[in-house]
């Protein structure tokens, strides 16, 4: 089955808004009609199995284009609008993409990379019945003439679920991002599991502060569409009061965030903990380890709200494990166990499950495991072996099978939940002719979890911190720009000539 058809199977004609929020809202039938219109147009102009880029923040435009591209049998490649032009050029080139759906304010910057660009105003001009604006406050009106056209667009149950639905680019251990290929079947499998353990229903309404170009954000979209729930879009998380007000105004039943969301809202807002959210049923946290004190602070302030600690990877569509909220006090610090349909194990070097207390690598099998890395069979073969995804994360288990991560993706830095590759930043900085060497490390940060620090060796003294920042700003997206820059005489290396980042971390903590 096509994922879009699966998502809308029971919800396409619900008489309610699917997206709400301060900026825009749209009903299920109106959204479904836009999705069908976009899909039909793409079939006409592009056929199938083309890679189509989608660049934008969360919006009705993004959601309609995302589902429309997937429904058309083409492959959606969602991208952060803050991406640098060079990195985007690389992705466009690798995908051979000709078409981009790009939100208006980014069109000027990125359109030269595409043969054809569609912004927010485009879908209304696609041939189809009863042209209407994509986002409409008057969603009741939009529902009236929606049925005939939508019924014309067939629900393709025969669609092969092993076909690619999307490619999500994520930082790899090399400088270039790697594309995670997800099939329609992957999306369906993970959606089913998440709905089951979160017990989601049509009554659920989630406050969305996570971007839809990120797998965690997408999982919120997928699950809520499938159950006929609704999503409140908020792209200004740092305006904490808007989040608090959304939760109240829209009577949200759920909230999802990465560690920095919880750290910021608990630490920066005095009001949050004192506010009552009578409709809030649960919150979920993934995307890195939230320090235990914050989990306790949250659950003490909101004892009636279920707190789900979860773990996952883009390579697994999104989700791999969760810790049932009732187990949180007894198993605090654990990421729980595999979600329904996923076998999550900690394996030793011989490929056998570890004994309690022993450390091994987390590996997973299930319908949500990616098809592979785009155009990288070697890396795919190293990552998926015997049908199991090897996550690169090290962990252990207790007597009851609850998993604890001991070392997470060592080579990455997690800035506000976003996986950042030190190598990518290093390779940009060393392009400056005055730079001899550069090493990037993550340093603890109260709000972002980790912040980026650059240790740089230069020849001569003319290069200043500002020059480094300026150069990075030109070539990297904002999360990848170092917060700290320090010039040193040389980068410490081990006897074998490997850079010893651990010593830089010591250097930093000794100085602070």
């Amino acid at each position: 089955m096509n994922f879009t058809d699966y998502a809308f199977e029971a919800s396409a004609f619900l008489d309610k808004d699917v997206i709400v929020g301060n900026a825009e809202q749209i009903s299920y039938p109106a959204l479904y009609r836009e999705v069908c219109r976009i899909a039909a147009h793409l079939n006409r102009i592009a056929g199938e199995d083309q890679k189509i880029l989608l660049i934008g923040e969360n919006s009705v435009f993004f959601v309609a284009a995302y589902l429309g591209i997937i429904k058309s049998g083409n492959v959606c490649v969602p991208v952060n609008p803050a991406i640098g032009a060079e990195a985007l050029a690389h992705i466009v080139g690798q995908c051979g993409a000709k078409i981009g759906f790009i939100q208006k304010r980014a069109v000027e910057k990125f359109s030269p990379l595409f043969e054809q660009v569609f912004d927010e105003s485009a879908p209304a001009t696609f041939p189809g019945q009863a042209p209407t604006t994509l986002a409409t406050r008057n969603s009741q009106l939009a529902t009236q003439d929606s049925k005939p056209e939508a019924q014309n667009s067939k629900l393709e149950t025969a669609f092969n679920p092993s076909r690619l639905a999307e490619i999500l680019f994520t930082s790899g251990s090399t400088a270039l991002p790697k594309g995670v290929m997800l099939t329609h079947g992957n999306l369906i499998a993970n959606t089913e599991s998440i709905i089951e353990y979160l017990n989601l229903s049509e009554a659920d309404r989630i406050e969305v502060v996570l971007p839809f170009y990120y797998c965690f954000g997408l999982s919120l979209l997928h699950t809520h569409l499938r159950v006929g729930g609704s999503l409140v879009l908020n792209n200004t998380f740092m305006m904490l009061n808007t989040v608090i007000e959304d939760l109240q105004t829209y009577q949200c039943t759920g909230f999802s965030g990465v560690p920095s969301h919880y750290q910021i809202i608990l630490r920066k807002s005095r009001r949050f903990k004192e506010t009552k959210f009578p409709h809030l049923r649960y919150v979920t946290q993934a995307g890195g380890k939230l320090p235990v004190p914050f989990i306790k602070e949250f659950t003490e302030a909101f004892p009636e709200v279920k707190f789900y600690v979860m773990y996952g990877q883009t390579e697994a569509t999104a989700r791999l494990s969760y810790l049932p909220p009732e187990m949180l006090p007894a198993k605090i610090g654990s990421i729980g166990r595999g979600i329904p349909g996923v076998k999550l194990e900690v394996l030793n070097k011989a490929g056998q499950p570890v004994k309690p207390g022993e450390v091994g690598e987390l590996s997973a099998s299930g319908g949500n495991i990616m098809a592979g890395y785009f155009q990288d069979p070697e890396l795919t073969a190293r990552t998926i072996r015997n049908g199991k995804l090897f996550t690169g994360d090290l962990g252990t288990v207790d007597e009851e099978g609850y998993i604890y991560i001991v070392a997470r993706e060592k080579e990455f830095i997690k800035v506000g939940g976003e996986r950042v590759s030190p190598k990518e930043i290093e390779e940009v900085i060393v392009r400056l002719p005055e730079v001899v060497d550069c090493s990037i490390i993550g340093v603890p940060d109260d709000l972002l979890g980790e912040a980026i620090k650059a240790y740089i060796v230069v020849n001569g003294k003319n290069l200043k911190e500002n020059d480094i920042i300026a150069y990075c700003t030109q070539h990297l997206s904002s999360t990848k720009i170092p917060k700290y820059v320090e010039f040193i005489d040389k980068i410490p290396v081990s006897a074998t000539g490997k850079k010893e980042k651990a010593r830089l971390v010591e250097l930093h903590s000794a100085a602070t």
Partner: protein
Amino acid sequence: MDVKTEIRNYLYSERFKNEFAKLGDDDSLLERGIIDSVKMLDLIGFLEQKFNVTVDDDDLYPENFDSLNAITAYVGQRIK
């Protein structure tokens, strides 16, 4: 230097500047993508340090931070 000039200089500093060519005093920083959550933290840190004010969480509304003029007016109130 007056408050507005200080803030303008900050917005034109290396960390921000390639995001925009020329910034009108009332242009929306959020809509133009100049401020995301990471930069918002940076901005709050700058305002607190530079003008010795406390950015109260009750003030975290777009109206207070969405343009050069809005930020200037907000800081002006806090200084008094």
